[in-house]
C-alpha cells in the first residue's frame, strides 16, 4: 500500500503543491488502518513517513529531517494511524461478534424448526444431539429414562465415546440446579412438567456460555418431547376409539344378521305349531321351506363370522393344493343356485388358465361372496358373467353384473368391514357388510387382490380377482 502511494505521489508531485502530497500519504495510511488493525496501521504510518521524507522532502533521497515542520508531520502521521487503527480494530471485532451471533441465531432457528417439525421422539432427540455437538464442538449423548429406571443413551453425536453406567447413575441421582460434572462429562437434566425425563451429556471442558446455550436447547427439546408425546397419546386414543367403533359395529351386525334369519325361523315354526292345523298343505310346506332356507342363511352368516375372526387374527392357514378353476367356479355357482332364481351365469375360462396352487375352499368362498353381491344388485333381467384369463405371471378372474354400478369414490370403501351396514339398518340390500372384506382377506392370503371396476359397456360392476401364479416351494428348486 505504501509502495502504491509512493508511485502515485511520483506521478502527481509535479501537478500539485509539495505540502499536499502528505495528504496523499495520509489517505494511504487511513485505507490500511480501516482494512486491518492497530499494528499494521502503525507500521504503515511509519513507512509512509519515511517514504515521504526520503522522496519528497528536501534534502531529497535522504532520511534527514530538514526542518521542524517535518517532525510535526511525522507526529500527525503516527497519531492519525493510532486513532484510525484503533477504530478499525473495534469495528472488526464488532463485525466478528455480529457474525457469530447471527450464526448462533440461525443455528437456533434451524434447531427450533427441526424441533417443531419433528414427527417423533427419536427425531427430537437426534436433532438435539446434532445441534449440541455442533454448537459446543464436543461429543454429546442424549439419554432418556423410562419411568422408574435409569436413563439410557438414545441419540449421540460427535466422536464415539463411552459413558460409564456408574457415571450415569451418579449424575441421575444428583439433584443440583447446575450441570453435574463427572469424569470429564457435563450432565444436564431434561425435565418435562418438573419431572426429569432424561439427561444430556457433553464431554470435555464446556464454558458457561455453552452451558447456557445447551440449557436453552434442552428447554426447547423438552417442549418438543411433550408435543410428540401428546401426538402419540392422541393417536393411541384414536386407535382405541376406532377399535371400539369396529367392535360395536361387529356386535350390531352380528345381532342383526343372526337375528333376522332366526326371526323367520321362530316365526314360521311357532306359526306351524300353534295354528298349523288351520293352514293349507301348501302353506305348511311353504313355511317349512322357509325354515330350511333361513337356517342355511344363518349357517352362511356364522361361517362368514368365523372366517372373519380367523382372518382378523391372522390365523388363516392355507392348505394349498392343485385346483382346477372350473371346479371352483362351478361349485360356487352351485352353492348359490337357489339364490340365483334363474339369473343366467355365463362362465368363460380361457384354456391358457393353468391349474391353481391355492386353498380351494377359500377361493371358492371369495367367489361365493362376490357372486352373492352380484345377485343382490342384479336387475331381474340381468346376467352375470365370470371370465378368467392368464396374464404375465398372474390370473385374472372378472365377475361382472348388470347392476347399478359403484360410484368411483366408493370402490375402495366397499371392502371396508360393515360398509353396507353403516348405511342404515341393513343397507339397501341383503348383506352383512362382511362379504367383501372377507373376500379381499382370503384373496390377500394368497398374495392376490380384489378390486371393483367399471362394468361391461359402462353398465354394472366388474369385480376382479387377481391371483399370482405360484408353485409349491419344493417344485421351484428341484
Amino acid at each position, binding site marked *: 500500500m505504501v509502495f502504491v502511494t509512493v508511485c502515485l505521489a511520483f506521478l502527481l508531485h509535479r501537478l500539485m503543491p509539495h505540502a499536499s502530497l502528505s495528504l496523499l500519504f495520509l489517505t494511504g495510511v487511513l485505507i490500511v488502518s480501516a482494512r486491518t488493525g492497530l499494528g499494521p496501521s502503525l507500521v504503515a504510518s511509519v513507512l509512509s513517513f519515511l517514504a515521504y521524507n526520503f522522496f519528497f522532502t528536501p534534502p531529497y533521497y535522504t532520511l534527514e529531517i530538514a526542518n521542524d515542520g517535518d517532525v510535526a508531520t511525522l507526529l500527525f502521521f503516527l497519531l492519525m494511524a493510532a486513532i484510525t487503527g484503533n477504530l478499525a480494530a473495534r469495528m472488526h471485532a464488532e463485525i466478528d461478534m455480529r457474525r457469530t451471533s447471527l450464526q448462533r441465531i440461525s443455528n437456533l432457528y434451524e434447531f427450533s424448526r427441526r424441533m417443531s417439525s419433528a414427527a417423533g421422539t427419536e427425531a427430537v432427540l437426534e436433532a438435539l444431539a446434532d445441534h449440541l455437538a455442533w454448537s459446543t464442538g464436543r461429543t454429546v449423548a442424549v439419554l432418556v429414562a423410562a419411568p422408574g429406571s435409569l436413563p439410557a443413551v438414545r441419540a449421540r453425536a460427535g466422536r464415539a465415546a463411552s459413558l460409564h453406567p456408574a457415571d450415569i447413575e451418579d449424575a441421575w441421582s444428583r439433584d443440583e440446579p447446575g450441570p453435574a460434572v463427572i469424569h470429564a462429562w457435563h450432565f444436564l437434566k431434561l425435565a418435562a412438567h418438573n419431572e426429569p425425563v432424561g439427561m444430556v451429556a457433553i464431554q470435555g471442558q464446556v464454558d458457561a456460555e455453552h452451558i447456557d446455550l445447551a440449557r436453552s436447547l434442552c428447554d426447547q427439546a423438552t417442549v418438543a418431547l411433550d408435543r410428540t408425546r401428546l401426538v402419540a397419546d392422541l393417536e393411541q386414543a384414536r386407535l382405541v376409539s376406532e377399535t371400539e367403533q369396529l367392535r360395536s359395529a361387529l356386535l350390531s351386525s352380528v*345381532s*342383526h344378521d343372526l*337375528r*333376522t*334369519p*332366526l*326371526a*323367520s*325361523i*321362530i*316365526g*314360521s315354526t*311357532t*306359526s306351524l305349531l*300353534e*295354528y298349523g*292345523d*288351520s*293352514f293349507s298343505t301348501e*302353506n305348511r310346506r*311353504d*313355511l317349512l321351506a*322357509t325354515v330350511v*332356507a*333361513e337356517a342355511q342363511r344363518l349357517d352362511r352368516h356364522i361361517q362368514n363370522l368365523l372366517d372373519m375372526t380367523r382372518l382378523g387374527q391372522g390365523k388363516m392357514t392355507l392348505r394349498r393344493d392343485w385346483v382346477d378353476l372350473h371346479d371352483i367356479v362351478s361349485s360356487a355357482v352351485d352353492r348359490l343356485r337357489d339364490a340365483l332364481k334363474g339369473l343366467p351365469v355365463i362362465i368363460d375360462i380361457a384354456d391358457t388358465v393353468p391349474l391353481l396352487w391355492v386353498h380351494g375352499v377359500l377361493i371358492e368362498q371369495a367367489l361365493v361372496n362376490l357372486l352373492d353381491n352380484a345377485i343382490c344388485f342384479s336387475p331381474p333381467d340381468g346376467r352375470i358373467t365370470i371370465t378368467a384369463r392368464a396374464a404375465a405371471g398372474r390370473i385374472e378372474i372378472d365377475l361382472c353384473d348388470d347392476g347399478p354400478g359403484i360410484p368411483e369414490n366408493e370402490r375402495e370403501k366397499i371392502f371396508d368391514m360393515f360398509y353396507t351396514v353403516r348405511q*342404515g*339398518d*341393513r*343397507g*339397501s*340390500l341383503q348383506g352383512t357388510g362382511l362379504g367383501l372384506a372377507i373376500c379381499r382377506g382370503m384373496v390377500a392370503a394368497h398374495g392376490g387382490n380384489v378390486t371393483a371396476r367399471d362394468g361391461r359397456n359402462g353398465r354394472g360392476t366388474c369385480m376382479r380377482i387377481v391371483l399370482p401364479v405360484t408353485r409349491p416351494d419344493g417344485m421351484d428348486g428341484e
Partner: protein
Amino acid sequence: MNTASGTILVVEDEAQIRKFLRISLEAHGYVIYEARLGKDGLKLCESTQPQLVILDLGLPDMDGQQFIARLREWSQVPIIVLSVRSSEAQKVQALDAGANDYVTKPFGISELMARIRVVLRGAEEAASAPTVFDARGLRVDMALREVRVDGTPVHLSKKEYALLRLLIDSRGRVLTHQHILREVWGPARQDETHYLRVLVGQLRQKLGDDPASPRFIVTVQGVGYRLAVPAR
C-alpha cells in the same frame, strides 16, 4: 280357531317374515296387505286404510322412525313396530314418534297375536270413549271420578288419578317415561324419572297391585308402562 276381522298392513323387507305373518294372520281372518318398501307402505296405507300397521324399523328405503312420523301426519292408525334392535332408545324413539307397541325380533307368533288383539281392542275402545272402564276387577267411573278395585272404593290423589286416566285412555299402547312425565307434570319435568317411579309405586300400592306380577300396570323395562288389558 277363533276368527277376527280387520285389515292389517305389513311393512317389512324380509320376504320370509312377510310370508309367515301373512299365512298366520290370514288364518285368523285378517285381510293382509304387504309392502317391502316404506314409500309403498305409505301409499298402501292411504289407499287401503288398514286398521293396524305392522312395521319393521329397518327398511331399505327409509328409517322406520321416519315412516312413523310421516304416517302420523295424517293418520292415527295403530302401529306395532318390529325390530331386531334391542336398544331401549330405539323403542322409546319409535313409541314417542307415535307407535303403539313393539315386538322385538325374533318373536313367537302368539306373542305378536296377543299384541295385535290388545292394540286393536284398545284403539276400538278408546275410539268409543266409554265413561266407565271395567277390566280385571278394576272399575273406573270417569264421570264420577270414582275408582274401585274388586268393588272396594280406592281414594287416589290428583296425580295418581291423572296417571291412571292416562294409562286407561291410552290402553293398548306403551307409554314412555317421557310421555307420562310430560302429560302428568308438564314439559319441564320430563326427565325427572324418579317422580314417576315414586308415583307408580304409590298407585300400585293403593290398587293392591304387585309389581312382580302386575295385574293392572305393567312395567316395560327401560321404556315405560302400559295398562294390562285382557286380550279378547
